[in-house]
């Protein structure tokens, strides 16, 4: 696959998703970037903003098998991964048969992931990181490609189990789904209340998607850009010499090395979408907030001051890039 074909396909995918999704162009773009980079996305937003619709549409456009898991407090890990059940063959002999859970799909929508217990949440850990599921002492490969798109509601925090750092770090990007504007909301209403449904067509198949992912991995990265990313990650750590004063004052934990990996991987996809063979600082600048915002933990003072990780990242970027 050539770069032009890549950018053309990506453009078509975005266009096709936009047929269903009103507005949220950046969310669509970043979700696509994350999927093409082989990462998982955490979508955060209030209910009714089209998160589930987005994931569903993406699966349709990419011709992928879609599965939705609604996380609730009583959801068990086996409900996610699957379990061995006793079956009986024709001769009446009983045996264990693995009943695959909803995780065995190409795109998983883990809806309201923070409502499940940590035990259930952690059932997704292996799937997200290793792309495998282990049940009954047997490890099973998940289908390729495999993406998890999780959602969480920032408002209803009662009775939720916030994702632990180890798990949240597995998400390549955390996207904040903002409330649509007046025009967009009007268009959403118009679209959803009329009988004419917007049909989306599959733009790429699994093979093409795999090629696109492979090409994204080949994008060149200059030492200077790598060093900038490394310095950016180090700057989020309050104890590091590169850290600006605001980080030293308000940050408890900085971004993990996975943050740098996520930034580079996502940046490569963006570079290809922009028609470049190389990663640019511009890509880093755009993707720094989605890639690092869930990896930076503010201390008490930072939260009391009402700071956001996005603001800190912007300040660091102003210094570095």
């Amino acid at each position, binding site marked *: 696959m050539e770069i032009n074909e890549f950018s053309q396909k990506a453009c078509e995918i975005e266009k096709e998703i936009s047929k269903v999704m009103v507005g949220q162009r950046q969310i669509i773009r970043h979700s696509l970037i994350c999927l093409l980079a082989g990462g998982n996305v955490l979508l955060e937003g209030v209910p009714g903003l089209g998160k589930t619709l987005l994931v569903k549409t993406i699966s349709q456009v990419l011709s992928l098998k879609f599965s939705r898991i609604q996380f609730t407090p009583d959801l068990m890990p086996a409900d996610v991964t699957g379990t061995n059940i006793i079956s009986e063959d024709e001769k009446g002999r009983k045996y264990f048969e693995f009943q695959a859970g909803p995780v065995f799909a190409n795109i998983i929508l883990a809806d309201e992931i923070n409502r499940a217990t940590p035990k259930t949440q952690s059932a997704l850990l292996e799937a997200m990181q290793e792309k495998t599921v282990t049940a009954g002492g047997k490890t099973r490969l998940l289908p390729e490609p495999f993406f998890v798109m999780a959602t969480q509601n920032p408002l209803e925090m009662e009775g939720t189990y916030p994702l632990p750092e180890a798990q949240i770090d597995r998400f390549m990007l955390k996207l904040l789904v903002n409330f649509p504007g007046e025009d967009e909301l009007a268009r959403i209403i118009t679209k959803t209340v009329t009988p004419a449904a917007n049909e989306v067509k599959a733009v790429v198949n699994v093979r093409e998607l795999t090629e696109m992912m492979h090409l994204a991995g080949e994008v060149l990265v200059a030492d200077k*850009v790598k060093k900038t990313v490394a310095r950016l990650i180090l700057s989020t750590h309050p104890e590091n010499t590169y850290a600006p004063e605001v980080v030293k004052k308000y940050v408890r934990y900085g971004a993990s090395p996975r943050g740098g990996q996520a930034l580079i991987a996502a940046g490569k996809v963006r570079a290809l979408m922009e028609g470049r063979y190389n990663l640019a600082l511009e890509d880093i600048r755009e993707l720094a907030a989605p890639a690092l915002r869930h990896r930076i933990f503010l201390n008490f003072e930072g939260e009391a001051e009402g700071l956001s990780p996005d603001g800190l990242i912007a300040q660091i970027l102003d210094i570095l890039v």
Partner: protein
Amino acid sequence: MHGKPDNFPQKVVSILKFGFHNRDFDNREIKKALRPILKRLLVQHYLIKAFQYMAVITLVTGLFLVISFFYPWPEVFRWCMAVAGVVGISFFIWAYLTRPDYYQAAIMADRDGLKERAITALELSGQNDRMTVMQRTDALMHLKQFDARAQYPFFVPRREIAVCLAALLVITLCMALPGRTREEIEHRAELRKAIAQEVEKIGQLKEQLEEKQNQTRLAEREEAINILEELQVEMQENSDSNLKRSLKSISRAEEKLAALKNSGRESSQSDIANIIDALKANEVTRELGEKISAGDVEQARDEMEKFLENAESETGNKKDTLADVLEKAAANLSDTQLALQLNQAGQAVRSGGTGGSPQMETLDRILGMLCNQAGWQTDYNRVTTILQNARYGLLAAGEESCSTCQAGNGINGSMGSSGGNNSSGAAANGGSGNSNNSESGSGQESSMSGSQGAGSGAGRGIGSGAETQLQQNRSSPTSPGSEWAGMDFAKYEKIFDPERIGEAGESSFVQGEAGEGPQQTVTTTDPAVMTGNLRPYREVIGYYSQAARDSLNRSSIPPEMSDLVRDYFSSLEE
């Protein structure tokens, strides 16, 4: 790609070759594409460095001038030039080592629209896989479309310009505003010039004395030449044009000369001077006395022979007169041996002794002695005159270049120095005299002391300098200040100055007796001390200083105290 060795010597070589940040890259295409950008950056880089250099230099110059505005710094411009040179070389080296290279050109291009295409292509210029080649092609394409001229127009660094202008303003102010220190600097320059002139004069005198010495050897003259040479060296080594040091050197030379003159033969010199004076006092023998006092032995001999021949052919009175003069002079001599010889010579003349006779040989020897002594006296006077002139020349240079002297009243007239022949035992008019009348002429002519006392009494005449013409009257109506005028006399008001013994131009007489007679003190007709009055400090300081120098010259001051006295008066002269 970079291939930079880590060991130290090669690292140094690589720094010298490529600069601190410069690295070499393999791909020629990408370098060629970056070259227009690099050229613009290089020109701009050197332009900025040049302006920074100018800013630093103007700042340093301004700083130096401000310092020199408050503190005298004669070599300020020389220092400015030196700093400019050193800083210039440093800036050039710095500019060369920190010059931009392809890497920085690529960064600049990326920053201005190429989005890391150039730097990626440059860094990966050694690789040739499919993706890298495609990326390089993409980068080259974008670089070709990159208009370096439009992107990087040359600009002049405003901050440096502002610094330059501010520093130039300071420099202009420092140059334009009247500063005390500038006058001080000019003063030192003039002093340096004056010292050089005086050194040259001393050198000329030394050469003349050396020529004379080659003709007639004289130990005193040889010593005087050495003293002059030493003085010349000391003054040449006085690189910071220190007036005090130069004056001290001159004073020291004067003291040495005085010591040389008086060394162990004071009475002998006095005797010879008496003989010459006796010859000159008589009308018949005056011409002979003058020839002798001119110091030329041959001429004196010729004159003597001519005198004797004439006396032979004309009348015997002349011979008798000469004999009388010689005998009379012999009666006043302290050296009995010389007196005896002179008596014999007088008798030989009287009896018409012929050439070759022992008496006439004695006369001839005395004649030679007299001539040598007279010649040395002439040389001595010339040397002291030159040294006096040098002293006053330096002081005048200090005075003329000092603005403060314009406001002063100065001394009317200058110090008349001793004729140098106020030897003890001889009542002399030419004692240490201070002449306050500036109208008394230049006084360049030197002569031996005027009148003499009779006998070798201990009387020491202290009179005016009317007959001692070694005085330098430097004051003039247009330049009322004197060597003291440069001093800050404001703090000194008026001090009591007793009137000197005798009035200016008047003589004091002391009677003396021939031989080793007892000391006799005679009350002079002039009051020794008259009621004093209050006179400005500056009018009397020269007076006292000269008296101190004279005292030093006469060794009246104990040797262990002479330095103290000299330093004290030298400090006053500063």
